[in-house]
């Protein structure tokens, strides 16, 4: 803020701009008067040539970038965005309140194959599972939504469900506050760039790509690797594991090494007692939500999809079945399907120990649906 007198005083702060032919005053130079129409000069340059040159170079750069990611194995596809999740969530309030809804984290998201389910059930479920995120927020949301009176399958990945971790927790508030402009943007994106560009994927964004380079590690800071692209999604969020995870051994090793880092206990990890307390909190939340849903006649079924190898060991070590899964079913009174209890869900291939190959995801979905229809929701076909 300057005063009349101060603006009039030329001092060392104000380097003269007299040699600058485009120099102009701003409102800060004209206190207490009506401000005139601003000056907005255009630099004297051959702008047509510059524009053409810029467009040509831009197209070349973009073409090269796209070619690089296609050679890496990427293909154009639907972006797993908040807007995409919101579209599926809206279906419940727009006439599909009686649908079967899938909640959970990445295992339900990647492993439950909607086309297989549709073939067996006659109707496609609504996929609301999302990676790295506890389904409890969504469970509570549906418990409070009187429009929903369908059926609910809730996936349980122990390290996410019982820790309350919500990497994509923003999807829920986003779906409630999504503006008309954001809805239009989602539509435009799905019908233009997502259909054309393979590089249009958060995993290939500039900052993400730079961040995962081999930067020097700092002493005292635990090493961390971001989870890499694991799946491909379609317009209704039908999803399966990315072929590169299945077929490219080097890439598969990268995805495994990301998990391995998670398995190493860190200084920031909560102590056992705190972890147990957190698990109890999550179970208490589930009890309340399930009770509200069941009071409305909505059947809730918990599902523990497969994991294997070091991942399963890590889960069993930190979230033992008796204190988590069994406690959840006992407290909520809801039924559950744990993959270890069903021979038909054994022997599946999980390239990075956490998610099924596409073929086995189809086999798992068929087995899961068969058990559900036989033992839990028999009248539904």
């Amino acid at each position, binding site marked *: 803020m300057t005063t009349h007198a*101060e603006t009039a005083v030329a001092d060392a702060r104000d380097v003269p701009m007299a040699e600058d032919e485009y120099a102009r005053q701003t409102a800060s130079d004209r206190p207490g008067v009506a*401000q005139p129409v601003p000056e907005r000069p255009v630099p004297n340059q051959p702008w047509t040539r510059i524009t053409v040159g810029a467009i*040509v170079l831009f197209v070349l750069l*973009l073409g090269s970038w796209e070619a690089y990611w296609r050679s890496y194995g990427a293909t154009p596809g639907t972006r797993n965005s908040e807007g995409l999740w919101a579209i599926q969530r809206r279906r419940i309030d727009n006439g599909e309140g009686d649908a079967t809804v899938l909640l959970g984290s990445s295992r339900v998201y990647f492993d439950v194959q909607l086309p297989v389910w549709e073939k067996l059930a006659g109707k496609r479920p609504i996929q609301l599972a999302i990676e790295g995120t506890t389904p409890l927020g969504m469970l509570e949301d549906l418990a409070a939504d009187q429009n929903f009176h369908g059926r609910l399958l809730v996936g349980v990945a122990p390290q996410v469900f019982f820790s309350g971790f919500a990497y994509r927790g923003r999807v829920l508030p986003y779906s409630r506050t999504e503006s008309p402009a954001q809805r239009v943007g989602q539509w*435009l994106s799905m019908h*233009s760039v997502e259909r054309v560009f393979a590089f249009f994927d958060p995993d290939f964004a500039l900052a993400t790509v730079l961040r995962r380079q081999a930067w020097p590690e700092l002493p005292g*800071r635990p090493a961390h690797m971001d989870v890499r692209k694991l799946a491909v999604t379609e317009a209704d969020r039908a999803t399966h594991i990315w072929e590169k995870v299945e077929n490219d051994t080097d890439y598969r090793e990268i995805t495994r090494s990301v998990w391995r880092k998670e398995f190493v206990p860190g200084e920031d990890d909560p102590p056992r007692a705190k972890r147990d307390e957190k698990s109890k909190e999550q179970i208490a939340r589930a009890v309340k939500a399930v009770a509200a849903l069941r009071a409305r006649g909505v059947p809730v079924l918990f599902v523990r999809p497969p994991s294997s190898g070091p991942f399963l060991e890590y889960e069993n070590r930190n979230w033992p079945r008796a204190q988590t899964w069994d406690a959840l079913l006992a407290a909520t009174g809801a039924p559950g399907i744990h993959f270890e209890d069903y021979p038909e869900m054994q022997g599946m291939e999980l390239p990075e120990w956490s998610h099924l190959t596409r073929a086995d995801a189809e086999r798992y979905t068929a087995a899961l649906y068969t058990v559900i229809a036989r033992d839990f929701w028999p009248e539904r076909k």
Partner: protein
Amino acid sequence: MVFNSLTFVVFFACVLVLYNLPLGWTARKVNLLLASYLFYAAWNPPFVILLWVSTVVDWYAAQGLVKAQRQSARHAWMLLSVVANLGMLGYFKYGQFLLDNFTSMLNAMGVAYQPAHADIVLPVGISFYTFATMSYTLDVYLRRAAPARNLLDYALFVTFFPHLVAGPIMRPTELVPQFAEPRRANADQLRFGLALMTLGLFNKVVLADSFLASVAEKVYDSDKIPGALDAWAATLAFSGQIFCDFAGYSTTAIGAALCLGFAMPDNFRFPYAAVGFSDFWRRWHITLSSWLRDYLYIPLGGNRHGEGRTYVALMGTMLLGGLWHGANWTFVVWGGLHGFYLGVERALRKRFTNFRPGPIALILLGLLTYALINLTWVFFRAKTFGKAWVVLNGMFGLNALAKPILSSFYLISVALIVGGIVTTHWYMRARTLESVVARAHPAAIASVWALLAFAIVIAQGSGNAFIYFQF
């Protein structure tokens, strides 16, 4: 809608086509007005009503001011405008804040009182357009300007989409005259306007959102206690983020207006090369600082009533300027710190009237200014005083329990980007962007333009709102 979205790209393309149709000037202005309402309604359609209220109240207040014979009547019309605008702003922006403070005060006095949460949604850009419309009535009241000749021109001044939600805060005398005669951008204006939009979006999407925002978040939005390196890195990152975010918005807005043939004022002039705080405020958010000067500081007495009153006016202006940014006491402290800095600088200038720094001293004073501004950003960025103290303690090496938070990637990005921003500001300190562009080789301009556009696309921004939208 936000500038950094696919929706805006399509919207702007449609606006350019519609605006350049061979129609009469009034029809083209109506097109612009309707497009601007659509631009605003795309956030939350009912809030367009607030925009209309602000427009209509100030239109009639200005008409009343012109017709009023007595001074008391002029006062009344002016007050109507101020009360209506500040009333809307007060309710939507400060309603919950006032209620919370009132509740805390009663509780401190031993009165148990807990009102229901008001759950008020803040209309986007309300702080900007209420200030723009108030400047219209106040300029007419102060006899600095004549009222607009017709409601269409006035409504378009209020609503013109490039400046509507985050400035630059325009005065009626800057924009209304531009609506008087038919206007179209020539080919060079269109191309330079597009280049400015690219530059603005690069600042926002690439520098602010993709690289700097996450660094500030990792320290300011986490429970971890930062050491000196992390606290400084996060604060420097925020200094870069808020500049790139807000200056990026202003540059995009100026470019969009230029594509339509309109001129908008500069809002930033390389502020991180400021030497002293009065210099900083002549370079940072110029249209707000000059608004506060003209409609608050000068009416409060300015420097016309002695030294003591000048300091009071200065501090009062900066405290209210802080509160303008957000309904939180941390913003008031941010404004208070700037008021304090300005006061100290003023006192030093009076004490050392003949001091003229040499080149080295100038740079050192500039760096001191930047460092002190960074201390104010701590209060601007932290959501609570507790967090602000933790970060400040970290910056001064007082957090004994600190553990490293930021990886080397984040530290290196902050060093490169913020270092680049400050160096650029010093290089550009006495220059204009236009003069540098005019002297550059055309091939270099084309290459830089293409690289900026390429970086925007591959950064894949997620359409994050601009920080200043919340103000």
